[in-house]
């Protein structure tokens, strides 16, 4: 399995600030990996994802994508490699769902041209794959929050990047939609597309991730496989509450986390 993303000793601080938002971050991502980053609010998860998408420029270390240093890549080259869904999308104009998803094809469309039939077909196919094709003519401002998140997901899939960055993809979804979304993500990861997601729910790690990083105060306290990293001790360290990690019985065969105080 090829390494898709390599991060070596990365750090970032805002211009004029004295403190790093995060530092000494190193890890790599291969085909079929789903890395879930857990950590309290303000620990630097979102900033880290933005740096990997080169929306912010790291102030130390390096980020290697497809054997290139990301700082030297052009926007459309980065977009072909890295797809990013922000935590919050603020819609302005009521584009149709299909128009919104077509924007995922930007990196493949020249500055002075418009989406081709092929681009449109890729987007239709992605909408069908996610079972939201029936929405394609609806204004994407006029559908439910869960449906909109699927539209954003369709957009990033239409981008055909080699890595996905998902910033709290489930934060605005109801209980059912969270799990539906994670199942789809799991299937897509299983087909080979590696992804990094952030979450506030340790349970999500056991649902989709094969790698997990525990982040606190701008540093990875631990990174590794879920069984070893999502422990009662680590969860207490980052969230400051006692949590019981339980093993469910054989037909579900998964761990869950239950706060106990």
């Amino acid at each position, binding site marked *: 399995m090829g390494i898709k993303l390599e991060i070596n000793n990365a750090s970032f601080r805002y211009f004029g600030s004295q403190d790093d938002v995060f530092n000494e971050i190193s890890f790599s991502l291969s085909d079929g990996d789903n890395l879930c980053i857990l950590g309290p609010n303000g620990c630097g998860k979102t900033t880290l994802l933005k740096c990997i998408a080169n929306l912010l420029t790291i102030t130390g270390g390096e980020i290697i994508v497809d054997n290139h240093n990301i700082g030297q890549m052009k926007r459309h080259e980065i977009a072909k490699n890295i797809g990013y869904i*922000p935590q919050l999308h603020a819609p302005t*104009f009521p584009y149709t769902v299909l*128009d919104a998803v077509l924007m995922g094809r*930007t990196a493949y469309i020249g500055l*002075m041209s418009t989406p081709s039939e092929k681009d449109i077909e890729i987007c239709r196919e992605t909408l069908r794959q996610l079972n939201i094709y*029936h929405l394609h003519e609806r204004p994407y401002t006029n559908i439910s929050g869960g449906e909109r998140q699927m539209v954003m997901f369709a*957009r990033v899939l239409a981008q055909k990047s080699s890595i996905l960055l998902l910033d709290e993809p489930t934060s605005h979804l109801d209980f059912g939609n969270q799990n539906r979304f994670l199942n789809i993500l799991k299937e897509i990861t299983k087909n080979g597309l590696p992804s990094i997601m952030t979450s506030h729910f340790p349970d999500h790690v056991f649902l989709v991730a094969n790698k997990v990083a525990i982040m606190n105060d701008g540093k990875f306290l631990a990174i590794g496989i879920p069984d070893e990293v999502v422990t009662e001790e680590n969860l207490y360290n980052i969230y400051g509450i006692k949590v019981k990690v339980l093993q469910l019985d054989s037909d579900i065969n998964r761990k869950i986390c239950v706060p106990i105080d």
Partner: protein
Amino acid sequence: MTTRKDTKCKEDLKKPVSFWKKTPTITLSLFISLIILFVISFWLGRYGISPAQVTQIFLSKIFPITPTWPDIMETVIFDIRLPRILAAILIGAALATAGASFQGLFRNPLVSPQILGVTSGAGFGAALAIVISGNPAVIQISAFGVAILAVVISWLISSRVRGNPTLTLVLAGMAIGALFSALTSLMQYMADPEDELPEIVFWLMGSLNSIYMKDLITVAVIILVGITVLMLIRWRINVLSMGEEEAKALGVNTTQLRAIIIVCASLITAAAVSISGMIGWVGLVMPHIGRMLVGPCNKKLLPVSALLGGIYMLIIDNICRTALSVEIPIGILTAIVGVPFFLYLIRKGKQGWV
């Protein structure tokens, strides 16, 4: 993955595709309307020329027809009506295209081409030239020059501020616009109330009176080039309207794209107002009417807005030059006719608004 909704997909495929299918028809009808209006506009005016005579005069330029009409008719048609009609179409199209582009760039449907201080700059440039020189060519050049200067200053200020580039640009533009408006008032205060002051006031109210072919040509070239570039990049404006960060993540060089839009939209607005004077409303409202017709996607919206702008300005200017025995300033009529029509549309159609 699952097949639960597959049957629903098939049903949906049979349904008529609303905006996608409707757009070519709407665009074509607008284009035909513009052509018809263009022809009719030659028949209108204080100097009566019948449609048949207009046709004959035009044909005489191609075929050897012996003139049965006085020379003055030819002068009225080619030297007065033709430049004025072309100017109305170009200015309307320019303002509407610039408005739609700026609305996408600034992610706000309340934005008008004035956002970066272009028209305030033009107003001051014109007022200054009226006081200092009074020569029409100097007034036009000065209006254009100061309009561009206003945008350049807004841009320079915003590029020196850290933070959201779109927001700083809007703030700088508002400040520069306010400054040039104040300077225009200063020029009005200092102007000779006998002749200069009325001229400044008339200029600010806007008029397509006294536009000659030679003035129009440079302006037409700037407007056509600017509109062409905006039309070529129009789909990308959609992506930019998703916001700076998302547009970057989708693969857009936002700094470059923003620069292209600002340069083109400012140039065409400045060129338009330099010959017409202040004309508000068109750049703000035509894109809205366009969105009601074809939806918000700029691929369809920009051409439709341009056509709507041309049609609207031509209608308004025809009213300006024929309704009363004196010429009505066009800046006044664009709003007086446009506002009730616009309010009616807001009430009637919700599509594309939200």
